[in-house]
Protein backbone atom coordinates (compact mmCIF):
# COMPACT_ATOMS: atom_id res chain seq x y z
CA UNK A 1 0.00 0.00 0.00
CA UNK A 2 2.66 2.47 1.01
CA UNK A 3 5.80 2.92 -1.05
CA UNK A 4 7.64 4.59 1.81
CA UNK A 5 10.69 2.49 2.70
CA UNK A 6 11.79 3.32 6.18
CA UNK A 7 12.23 1.73 9.57
CA UNK A 8 9.49 3.86 11.10
CA UNK A 9 7.02 1.82 13.16
CA UNK A 10 3.65 1.06 11.57
CA UNK A 11 0.37 0.27 13.27
CA UNK A 12 0.20 -3.47 13.95
CA UNK A 13 -2.84 -5.34 12.72
CA UNK A 14 -5.61 -5.26 15.34
CA UNK A 15 -5.69 -9.06 15.55
CA UNK A 16 -2.57 -9.06 17.72
CA UNK A 17 -4.62 -7.49 20.54
CA UNK A 18 -6.62 -9.53 23.03
CA UNK A 19 -10.33 -8.88 22.49
CA UNK A 20 -11.61 -6.60 25.27
CA UNK A 21 -15.09 -5.40 26.39
CA UNK A 22 -14.24 -1.87 25.20
CA UNK A 23 -13.52 -3.25 21.70
CA UNK A 24 -16.79 -5.18 21.70
CA UNK A 25 -18.73 -2.03 22.71
CA UNK A 26 -16.90 0.00 20.06
CA UNK A 27 -18.01 -2.25 17.21
CA UNK A 28 -21.47 -2.80 18.76
CA UNK A 29 -21.96 0.97 18.78
CA UNK A 30 -21.39 0.97 15.03
CA UNK A 31 -23.51 -2.12 14.40
CA UNK A 32 -26.45 -0.75 16.44
CA UNK A 33 -26.02 2.60 14.69
CA UNK A 34 -26.18 0.86 11.31
CA UNK A 35 -29.26 -1.12 12.37
CA UNK A 36 -31.02 2.03 13.57
CA UNK A 37 -30.13 3.67 10.24
CA UNK A 38 -31.82 0.95 8.19
CA UNK A 39 -34.65 0.72 10.73
CA UNK A 40 -35.73 4.31 10.07
CA UNK A 41 -37.48 2.80 7.02
CA UNK A 42 -39.92 1.23 9.51
CA UNK A 43 -40.61 4.69 10.96
CA UNK A 44 -41.19 6.00 7.43
CA UNK A 45 -43.61 3.14 6.78
CA UNK A 46 -45.55 3.69 10.02
CA UNK A 47 -45.81 7.49 9.65
CA UNK A 48 -46.68 7.45 5.93
CA UNK A 49 -49.22 4.66 6.52
CA UNK A 50 -50.86 6.64 9.33
CA UNK A 51 -50.94 9.71 7.09
CA UNK A 52 -52.33 7.72 4.13
CA UNK A 53 -55.46 6.28 5.70
CA UNK A 54 -57.05 3.47 7.74
CA UNK A 55 -56.29 0.69 5.22
CA UNK A 56 -52.54 1.42 4.97
CA UNK A 57 -52.37 1.91 8.74
CA UNK A 58 -54.07 -1.44 9.36
CA UNK A 59 -51.47 -3.18 7.14
CA UNK A 60 -48.58 -1.56 9.02
CA UNK A 61 -50.19 -2.26 12.41
CA UNK A 62 -50.71 -5.91 11.49
CA UNK A 63 -47.02 -6.24 10.64
CA UNK A 64 -45.78 -4.53 13.81
CA UNK A 65 -48.21 -6.63 15.85
CA UNK A 66 -47.07 -9.93 14.30
CA UNK A 67 -44.45 -12.19 15.87
CA UNK A 68 -41.80 -11.06 13.36
CA UNK A 69 -42.81 -7.42 13.81
CA UNK A 70 -42.60 -7.70 17.60
CA UNK A 71 -39.18 -9.39 17.37
CA UNK A 72 -37.92 -6.60 15.10
CA UNK A 73 -39.29 -3.97 17.50
CA UNK A 74 -37.68 -5.79 20.44
CA UNK A 75 -34.33 -5.79 18.62
CA UNK A 76 -34.81 -2.18 17.60
CA UNK A 77 -35.49 -1.23 21.22
CA UNK A 78 -32.22 -2.83 22.29
CA UNK A 79 -30.27 -1.20 19.45
CA UNK A 80 -31.74 2.18 20.39
CA UNK A 81 -31.00 1.82 24.11
CA UNK A 82 -27.55 0.36 23.52
CA UNK A 83 -26.61 3.13 21.10
CA UNK A 84 -27.95 5.72 23.56
CA UNK A 85 -26.03 4.28 26.52
CA UNK A 86 -22.92 4.09 24.31
CA UNK A 87 -23.49 7.72 23.36
CA UNK A 88 -23.77 8.75 27.01
CA UNK A 89 -20.44 6.99 27.56
CA UNK A 90 -18.97 9.13 24.78
CA UNK A 91 -20.26 12.29 26.51
CA UNK A 92 -18.38 11.26 29.67
CA UNK A 93 -15.21 10.63 27.63
CA UNK A 94 -15.66 14.01 25.92
CA UNK A 95 -15.10 15.66 29.30
CA UNK A 96 -11.83 13.77 29.66
CA UNK A 97 -13.13 11.46 32.39
CA UNK A 98 -13.36 7.67 32.73
CA UNK A 99 -10.66 6.92 30.16
CA UNK A 100 -8.42 4.76 32.35
CA UNK A 101 -8.09 1.07 31.49
CA UNK A 102 -10.13 -0.23 34.42
CA UNK A 103 -12.83 2.47 34.36
CA UNK A 104 -13.38 2.21 30.62
CA UNK A 105 -13.72 -1.58 30.90
CA UNK A 106 -16.21 -1.20 33.76
CA UNK A 107 -18.18 1.33 31.70
CA UNK A 108 -18.12 -1.01 28.68
CA UNK A 109 -19.57 -3.83 30.79
CA UNK A 110 -22.13 -1.45 32.29
CA UNK A 111 -23.22 -0.40 28.80
CA UNK A 112 -24.10 -3.90 27.61
CA UNK A 113 -25.62 -5.00 30.93
CA UNK A 114 -27.58 -1.74 31.19
CA UNK A 115 -28.91 -1.87 27.63
CA UNK A 116 -29.99 -5.53 27.91
CA UNK A 117 -31.60 -4.96 31.33
CA UNK A 118 -33.42 -1.81 30.22
CA UNK A 119 -34.72 -3.55 27.07
CA UNK A 120 -35.99 -6.58 28.99
CA UNK A 121 -37.59 -4.37 31.67
CA UNK A 122 -39.30 -2.21 29.05
CA UNK A 123 -40.72 -5.23 27.23
CA UNK A 124 -41.76 -6.93 30.45
CA UNK A 125 -43.65 -3.74 31.19
CA UNK A 126 -45.26 -3.86 27.75
CA UNK A 127 -46.24 -7.54 28.24
CA UNK A 128 -47.62 -6.98 31.73
CA UNK A 129 -49.29 -3.57 31.38
CA UNK A 130 -49.75 -3.46 27.60
Amino acid at each position, binding site marked *: MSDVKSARPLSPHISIYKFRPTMAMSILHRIT*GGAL*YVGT*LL*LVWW*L*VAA*ASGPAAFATA*SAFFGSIIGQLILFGYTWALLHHMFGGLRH*FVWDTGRAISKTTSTTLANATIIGSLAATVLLWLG*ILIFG
Partner: protein
Amino acid sequence: MSDFRTPLRRVRGMGAAGGTEHFWRQRLTAVANVFLITFFVILLLSLMNESYDGVRAAFANPFVGIAMALVVISATIHMQLGMQVILEDYVHGAAKMPLLILNTFFAIVVAAACLFAIVKMSFGA
Protein backbone atom coordinates in the same frame (compact mmCIF):
# COMPACT_ATOMS: atom_id res chain seq x y z
CA MET B 1 3.86 10.47 -10.79
CA SER B 2 3.76 10.33 -7.03
CA ASP B 3 7.56 10.47 -7.06
CA PHE B 4 7.32 14.19 -7.74
CA ARG B 5 5.18 14.83 -4.69
CA THR B 6 6.51 15.27 -1.20
CA PRO B 7 5.29 12.86 1.51
CA LEU B 8 3.38 15.73 3.12
CA ARG B 9 1.54 16.50 -0.13
CA ARG B 10 0.54 12.85 -0.51
CA VAL B 11 -1.13 12.66 2.90
CA ARG B 12 -2.81 16.08 2.90
CA GLY B 13 -6.57 15.68 2.91
CA MET B 14 -6.40 12.01 3.84
CA GLY B 15 -6.80 12.43 7.57
CA ALA B 16 -9.14 13.85 10.14
CA ALA B 17 -8.14 17.50 9.73
CA GLY B 18 -11.18 19.67 9.11
CA GLY B 19 -13.57 17.33 10.88
CA THR B 20 -14.34 19.59 13.82
CA GLU B 21 -17.69 20.69 12.43
CA HIS B 22 -18.60 17.05 11.72
CA PHE B 23 -17.68 16.02 15.26
CA TRP B 24 -19.59 18.93 16.77
CA ARG B 25 -22.79 18.26 14.81
CA GLN B 26 -22.57 14.58 15.75
CA ARG B 27 -22.44 15.51 19.44
CA LEU B 28 -25.04 18.27 19.14
CA THR B 29 -27.59 15.94 17.53
CA ALA B 30 -26.61 13.21 20.03
CA VAL B 31 -27.53 15.48 22.95
CA ALA B 32 -30.80 16.38 21.25
CA ASN B 33 -31.51 12.72 20.49
CA VAL B 34 -31.27 11.69 24.15
CA PHE B 35 -34.34 13.85 24.87
CA LEU B 36 -36.11 13.51 21.53
CA ILE B 37 -35.81 9.71 21.26
CA THR B 38 -36.96 9.37 24.88
CA PHE B 39 -40.05 11.37 23.92
CA PHE B 40 -40.50 9.24 20.78
CA VAL B 41 -40.36 5.95 22.75
CA ILE B 42 -42.86 7.26 25.32
CA LEU B 43 -45.16 8.41 22.48
CA LEU B 44 -44.97 4.95 20.86
CA LEU B 45 -45.75 3.28 24.19
CA SER B 46 -48.77 5.53 24.70
CA LEU B 47 -50.04 4.82 21.16
CA MET B 48 -49.33 1.08 21.30
CA ASN B 49 -52.96 0.00 21.66
CA GLU B 50 -54.54 3.01 19.98
CA SER B 51 -56.82 2.73 16.97
CA TYR B 52 -56.20 4.59 13.72
CA ASP B 53 -58.37 7.47 14.94
CA GLY B 54 -56.48 7.58 18.24
CA VAL B 55 -53.11 7.81 16.45
CA ARG B 56 -54.41 10.52 14.13
CA ALA B 57 -55.79 12.45 17.10
CA ALA B 58 -52.37 12.30 18.79
CA PHE B 59 -50.61 13.59 15.67
CA ALA B 60 -53.18 16.38 15.35
CA ASN B 61 -51.79 17.75 18.63
CA PRO B 62 -49.33 20.60 17.80
CA PHE B 63 -46.87 19.54 20.51
CA VAL B 64 -46.67 15.98 19.14
CA GLY B 65 -46.28 17.29 15.59
CA ILE B 66 -43.48 19.71 16.47
CA ALA B 67 -41.66 17.22 18.71
CA MET B 68 -41.91 14.42 16.12
CA ALA B 69 -40.57 16.77 13.43
CA LEU B 70 -37.61 17.55 15.70
CA VAL B 71 -37.09 13.81 16.32
CA VAL B 72 -36.91 13.20 12.57
CA ILE B 73 -34.63 16.17 11.82
CA SER B 74 -32.15 15.43 14.62
CA ALA B 75 -32.11 11.66 14.02
CA THR B 76 -31.61 11.87 10.26
CA ILE B 77 -28.76 14.40 10.56
CA HIS B 78 -27.14 12.20 13.23
CA MET B 79 -27.43 9.03 11.16
CA GLN B 80 -26.10 10.72 8.03
CA LEU B 81 -23.01 11.84 9.97
CA GLY B 82 -22.54 8.42 11.59
CA MET B 83 -22.88 6.42 8.38
CA GLN B 84 -20.44 8.82 6.68
CA VAL B 85 -17.79 7.93 9.28
CA ILE B 86 -18.45 4.20 8.84
CA LEU B 87 -18.16 4.49 5.05
CA GLU B 88 -14.99 6.58 5.26
CA ASP B 89 -13.44 3.99 7.57
CA TYR B 90 -14.30 0.84 5.62
CA VAL B 91 -14.86 1.79 1.98
CA HIS B 92 -11.99 2.91 -0.22
CA GLY B 93 -11.59 3.37 -3.93
CA ALA B 94 -14.27 3.81 -6.57
CA ALA B 95 -17.22 2.80 -4.39
CA LYS B 96 -16.57 5.41 -1.72
CA MET B 97 -17.97 8.54 -3.35
CA PRO B 98 -21.19 6.95 -4.74
CA LEU B 99 -21.91 5.44 -1.31
CA LEU B 100 -21.31 8.77 0.43
CA ILE B 101 -23.77 10.38 -1.99
CA LEU B 102 -26.30 7.56 -1.47
CA ASN B 103 -25.93 7.97 2.30
CA THR B 104 -26.87 11.64 2.14
CA PHE B 105 -29.73 10.96 -0.28
CA PHE B 106 -31.08 8.19 1.96
CA ALA B 107 -31.08 10.41 5.04
CA ILE B 108 -32.82 13.22 3.15
CA VAL B 109 -35.46 10.91 1.65
CA VAL B 110 -36.22 9.40 5.08
CA ALA B 111 -36.47 12.90 6.57
CA ALA B 112 -38.68 14.20 3.73
CA ALA B 113 -41.07 11.23 3.87
CA CYS B 114 -41.43 11.40 7.67
CA LEU B 115 -41.86 15.19 7.71
CA PHE B 116 -44.46 15.02 4.94
CA ALA B 117 -46.47 12.45 6.92
CA ILE B 118 -46.15 14.48 10.15
CA VAL B 119 -47.20 17.75 8.49
CA LYS B 120 -50.11 16.05 6.71
CA MET B 121 -51.38 14.58 9.97
CA SER B 122 -50.83 17.85 11.85
CA PHE B 123 -52.97 19.76 9.38
CA GLY B 124 -55.56 17.01 9.46
CA ALA B 125 -55.74 16.27 5.75
